[in-house]
């Protein structure tokens, strides 16, 4: 066990995966000499050489498209997309090729491709550098979608994603890169919780607060604050956004009867929408109140100085908790922040 940042934990996870399996290759813009703009691949090209850590030409469809060819040839490519907002040029290769290839070939061709994407806001960045595109991928059958929130999960789940024979879109919340914790980067993957599992980040009784990635820290702070007022919040860190670990989630909701789900991304047709729909289907009789979504607005990501008015923060999450507990006298049928 070593104390390290989430960034370093990801680096350690990559190193471990590359050591364990020499078919793992890294591809991306600026990941070699520079070690990536977030230094997640720092030192890996020096260690594993230019063939296994490839600086690629500046073309995202090119990165994913050639990764597919490498996968055909038996490799396990780990592609870095430099920022969330730059994944869309590769969307066709991801949606029409990566996601469908295994089914298309009756399982003969596997796509063990991991797409690492620094995700989300809260870092005062420029346009296209703070987006939350999780829902696009969750809506795409054939992909798995993961978002980590802490160093240990980052390290272990990245290794699991790379080891998975399915393609995984692996989100790394930028605002958590510098969070530090103890990490065991050599944990046996089979003994770690499965890639698809959620995590009870904090147990509680009155409300189930579901979130992931960059908001897990905020949610825990909110739970702490609520405790002072006598509200016991169970925080669920989804970790796997597709598939969602509904065993864990529904068990919690059946106990609490009240759900708040918080996400950075826009609300319409999102992960939050899906979770609410499923929980309504599977826990209808247990719900004491309508589940509450606390999300980014349905707007393009705003400029840095306005992001605080877009991203759910502690106050907005607590407001959501108040709403699901019926403590807010609502003027309309619902209140959306």
């Amino acid at each position, binding site marked *: 066990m070593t104390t390290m940042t989430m960034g370093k934990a990801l680096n350690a996870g990559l190193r471990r995966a590359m050591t364990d399996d020499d078919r793992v290759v890294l591809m991306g813009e600026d990941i070699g000499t520079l070690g990536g703009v977030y230094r997640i691949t720092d030192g890996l090209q020096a260690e594993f050489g230019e*063939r296994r850590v490839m600086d690629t030409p500046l073309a995202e469809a090119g990165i994913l*498209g*050639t990764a597919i*060819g*490498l*996968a055909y*040839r038996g490799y396990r490519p780990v592609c870095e997309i430099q920022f969330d907002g730059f994944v869309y040029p590769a969307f066709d290769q991801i949606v029409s090729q990566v996601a469908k290839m295994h089914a298309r*070939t009756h399982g003969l061709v596997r796509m063990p491709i991991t797409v690492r994407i620094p995700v989300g806001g809260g870092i005062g960045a420029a346009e296209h550098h703070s987006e939350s595109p999780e829902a696009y991928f969750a809506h795409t059958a054939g992909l798995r979608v993961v978002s980590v929130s802490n160093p240990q999960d980052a390290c272990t789940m990245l290794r699991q994603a790379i080891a998975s024979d399915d393609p995984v879109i692996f989100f790394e919340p930028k605002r958590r890169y510098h969070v530090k914790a103890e990490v065991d980067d050599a944990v046996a993957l089979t003994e770690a919780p499965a890639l698809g599992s959620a995590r009870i980040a904090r147990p509680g009784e009155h409300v189930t607060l579901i979130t992931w990635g960059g908001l897990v820290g905020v949610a825990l702070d909110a739970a702490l604050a609520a405790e002072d007022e006598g509200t016991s919040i169970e925080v669920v860190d989804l970790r796997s956004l597709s598939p969602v670990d509904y065993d864990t989630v529904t068990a919690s909701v059946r106990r609490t009867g009240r759900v708040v789900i918080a996400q950075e991304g826009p609300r319409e047709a999102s992960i939050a929408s899906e979770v609410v729909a499923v929980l309504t289907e599977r826990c209808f009789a247990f719900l004491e109140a309508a589940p509450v979504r606390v999300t980014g607005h349905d707007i393009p990501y705003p400029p840095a100085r306005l992001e605080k008015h877009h991203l759910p923060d502690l106050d907005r999450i607590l407001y959501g908790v108040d709403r699901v507990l019926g403590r807010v006298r609502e003027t309309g049928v619902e209140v959306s922040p």
Partner: protein
Amino acid sequence: MPDAAKPDATTQDPVRLLDEHGARTASDRYDPLIADLDDHALAGLYEDMVLIRRIDAEGMALQRQGELALWPPLLGQEAAQIGLGRALRSDDFVFSSYREHGVAYCRGVAPVDLLRVWRGVSVSGWDPFEAGMASPQVIIGAQALHATGYAMGIQNDRERDPATPDSVAVACFGDGAMSEGDVNEAMVFAATYQAPVVFFCQNNQYAISEPVSLQTRVPLADRPAGFGIPSARVDGNDVLAVTAVVREALERARGGGGPGFIEAVTYRMGPHTTADDPTRYRDPAELELWSARDPIQRLRAHLESRGAFGPELEESVAARADQVAAELRAGCIAMPDPDALEVFADVYAEPHAELDRQRADYARYLGGFVS
């Protein structure tokens, strides 16, 4: 690698070794590359072309009779496809579009497997690793990147283990595909890594209704030079010339000389697919012009001029064609409809609780009709 940096693309006339009457033109550059093609080998190419044309015609017929939902014919492109297909080694790997029945045939794909997709019973027809050919690609141009990545993998393998065969990846696409970003990005990646990939562009003059002049104002073979990739423009209806330029590009790639590009100038004599009506956009005179350049007639004339075409050959090939067509038809009609729950198969390689749940729910729903 100065060769890669000094591309030899030109706007000149396509490479041609057989004229339209089947007469052989000499070429210092290309003759050595096809010196092994004796009468027997030429007869083999002839048989391939006749067979694949017959398979194609049967595909058209089966569609017209309602046995297939759609068929994209290769009529007119036999020399380009057989020339390419027969120049490859079994350890090479092809990434094609939907029209390369001839290439697939050369890769050993059973004719009936060509039909599965078009009958709608499967989204792919064969084992890519057995054939050394990926499942055909419908998204125009996407496969050019797959081939490039595969070629990068060959490079890696050879670095890891020098005993790895010097295989080459091949990307087949059409003239229309040259406008897609993916194909151009593929050329960037191929050049940067000097990957052993050959881009084989069949310029059949049309992308559905759009003439190639809408995609480019200069020959397509001029494009790769600006990416640092050598290219050749070849008469795609001349199976000897196609064989020669493909072998040249393959040899260069095998030898570490990097990617190559071939524009095979040919003509789609049929409709884009059975759903298309080319009379809406094509002058009948044009079709007539190209009919005179028929690739099979040309090889046959050449064989005749060598005294290597006789009734036995003609009859044996015809008999073989009849047999293949009959088997194809029988195989097509016998194809079973897949089982309902197949829709859930192979979406993931590993267990997936939510999809398993959907499968179970659907199975229960279907069961309700039975009980």
